[in-house]
């Protein structure tokens, strides 16, 4: 009986092995329980449905796109469509090949021009599927940037035309320099900013305020186009540094506001709301393409921090308050691609903004925060080295409270977790004790064998084995038989007559 049930545990019921459709053949988990024939049928059906859906989606999107472009700018829209199509084809070389094969089939199976056309549309749609929204946004964003730029330049009349020409030349030059190191490209961009500003001021006699405004627009126009090539380029170690910082911040998850002396009380609802907004702001930085927009995100984040400090302390925040809070926000938010963003801003932002403006101040603080996080040690958090090491290794958490301090409304799960943590640390302790005792035992055993060996050795040395001549003991046997005389005489054989 017991043997039978055991066997059952291993074996699967006969019916489960068969095709789910009940055709009598065996099924296969790889085909979701169908046999090969039924699977092919099922798959084909699903595939047909998918194709149908895709088709509809493609048509719908195409209609929307056409409407959107028709409403904005007819010629430009068409142009950018072909451009974006070209771009996507270039980037998705592999996908395209697959699609072409598919298209080949679909064209042969379907007839009628309309169907071929929609098939083609679907192809475009398919090519886009890896990141449809991003690609679309990019092209629209670039488009909008240039349109705004042209609109803006109209207000500058003649200098405007000159600016446009110079931007075009610069973009062309940057295209040629794509192979060069990022530092050289950055220098090229800085030279460009400087030359344009100078020219506006000296040749066209534009007022400083207007120059500044123009520079902002130029930066936006130029960098929207260049972003793709100069943000976190493969030739640099930016990405590696990003990962290092990200990992570092993750490892520091345990840092509390108290350790950093952050003058912000998150228990006040408004303050915690500000903290959340600040974190959102700093994370949003990565999504912007123009250095100035990225700076604006940092500034926005800083403003929320100031608000949080103001509500908590009811006085204007000084740098003594601001920097620790900013560090805390960066630690809490762990913004993506932090180093890449900092490098990108340093390399391609209009220098006058970065050096003296308010944005520059907050950007500097961000650099400081990152530098602080990278170098952070026990001393900078007023912790002992042991505590710091223990927190870093995750052995314990500073947020952990003793059971007697638990507030009654504390989450049950958290309580359970702390209990488990305690249990684990106890187990860990015991484990360590056992290991150390086992080591001791091992050492004792080794010592013991060594001791015995030594004792034996000593004895052997003390009483060396002497082998005496062989015949000597034999003679001695006889000689030692002193009492032989006392023995009765040997029996004599007696002869009995007959």
């Amino acid at each position: 009986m017991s043997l039978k049930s055991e066997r059952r545990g291993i074996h699967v019921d006969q019916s489960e092995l068969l095709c789910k459709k009940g055709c009598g053949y065996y099924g296969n988990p790889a085909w979701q329980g169908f046999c090969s024939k039924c699977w092919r049928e099922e798959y084909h059906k699903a595939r047909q449905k998918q194709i149908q859906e895709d088709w509809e989606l493609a048509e719908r999107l195409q209609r929307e796109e056409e409407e959107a472009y028709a409403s904005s700018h007819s010629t430009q829209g068409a142009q950018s469509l072909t451009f974006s199509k070209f771009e996507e084809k270039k980037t998705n070389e592999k996908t395209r090949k697959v699609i072409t094969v598919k298209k080949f089939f679909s064209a042969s199976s379907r007839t009628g021009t309309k169907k071929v056309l929609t098939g083609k549309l679907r192809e475009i749609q398919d090519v886009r599927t890896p990141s449809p929204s991003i690609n679309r946004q990019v092209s629209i964003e670039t488009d909008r940037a240039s349109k705004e730029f042209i609109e803006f330049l109209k207000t500058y009349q003649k200098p405007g035309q000159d600016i446009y020409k110079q931007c075009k030349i610069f973009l062309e030059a940057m295209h040629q320099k794509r192979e060069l190191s990022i530092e050289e490209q950055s220098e090229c961009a800085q030279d460009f900013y400087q030359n344009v500003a100078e020219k506006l001021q000296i040749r066209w006699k534009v007022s400083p305020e207007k120059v500044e405004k123009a520079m902002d627009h130029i930066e936006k126009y130029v960098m929207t186009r260049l972003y793709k090539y100069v943000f976190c380029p493969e030739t640099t170690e930016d990405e590696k540094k990003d990962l290092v910082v990200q990992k570092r911040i993750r490892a520091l998850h345990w840092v509390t506001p108290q350790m950093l002396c952050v003058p912000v009380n998150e228990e006040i609802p408004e303050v915690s709301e500000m903290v959340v907004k600040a974190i959102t702001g700093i994370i949003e930085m990565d999504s912007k393409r123009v250095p100035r927009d990225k700076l604006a995100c940092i500034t926005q984040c800083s403003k929320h921090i100031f608000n949080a400090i103001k509500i908590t302390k009811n006085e204007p925040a000084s740098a003594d308050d601001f920097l620790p809070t900013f560090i805390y926000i960066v630690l809490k938010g762990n913004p993506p691609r932090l180093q890449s963003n900092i490098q990108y801003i340093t390399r391609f932002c209009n220098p006058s903004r970065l050096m003296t403006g308010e944005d520059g101040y907050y950007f500097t603080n961000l650099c400081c925060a990152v530098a602080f996080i990278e170098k952070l040690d026990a001393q900078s958090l007023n912790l002992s080295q042991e505590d710091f090491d223990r927190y870093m290794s995750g052995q314990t958490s500073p947020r952990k409270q003793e059971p007697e301090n638990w507030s009654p409304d504390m989450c049950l799960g958290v309580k359970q977790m702390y209990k488990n943590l305690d249990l684990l640390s106890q187990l860990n302790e015991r484990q360590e004790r056992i290991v150390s005792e086992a080591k001791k035992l091992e050492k004792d055993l080794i010592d013991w064998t060594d001791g015995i060996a030594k004792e034996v050795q000593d004895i052997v040395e003390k009483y060396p084995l002497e082998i005496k001549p062989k015949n000597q003991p034999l003679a001695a046997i006889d000689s030692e038989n002193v009492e032989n005389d006392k023995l009765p005489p040997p029996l004599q054989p007696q002869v009995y007559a007959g």
Partner: protein
Amino acid sequence: MAAAGSGAGGGGRSFSFKVVLLGEGCVGKTSLVLRYCENKFNDKHITTLQASFLTKKLNIGGKRVNLAIWDTAGQERFHALGPIYYRDSNGAILVYDVTDEDSFQKVKNWVKELRKMLGNEICLCIVGNKIDLEKERHVSVQEAETYAESVGAKHYHTSAKQNKGIEELFLDLCKRMIETAQVDEKARGNGSGQSGTARRGVQIIDDEPQAQSSGGCCSSG
């Protein structure tokens, strides 16, 4: 080119200066700038949200000056970040508390560091704050002034509470920075014929090795 640039501007030339505010916590850095920019002290009606970055527009002898005052975190743990803050600054205000000998020692450290990193390009002001607490003074006037002179800095006595000496401090600093900038410009103008705006660009290119050296300082400290 340079002569034409400044000539065209004439009396209406404008300067932008970056001034860093250094000093230990609690010496009254914030009070000092708030008094200067808002003319308020420990006031509940201070309109500004923050006192870490403040600007002030001045007109000195027909020259327009845009002053950007950068406050720095004074806690010891942030000391190593100093170079990131003060690079490219035209002036530094080093504040100590006249009742606190330690804070004066800190100022000495800052001066050493600034001179090492930025040379003589930067205008230094050493400021003894809280002179309203004269009775509790622990740093002698004589000592502070001799020291300031020995390192090529100017010494000022201020009280943010009583609004003493602050206006003079900033005005004096601005004048000195304008002088330095003009001397600098002349030297550059004679040399390479670049105009005032070019200076900034040149500074940016200089920026790279500077950033590296500051990094080195951080790692050693």
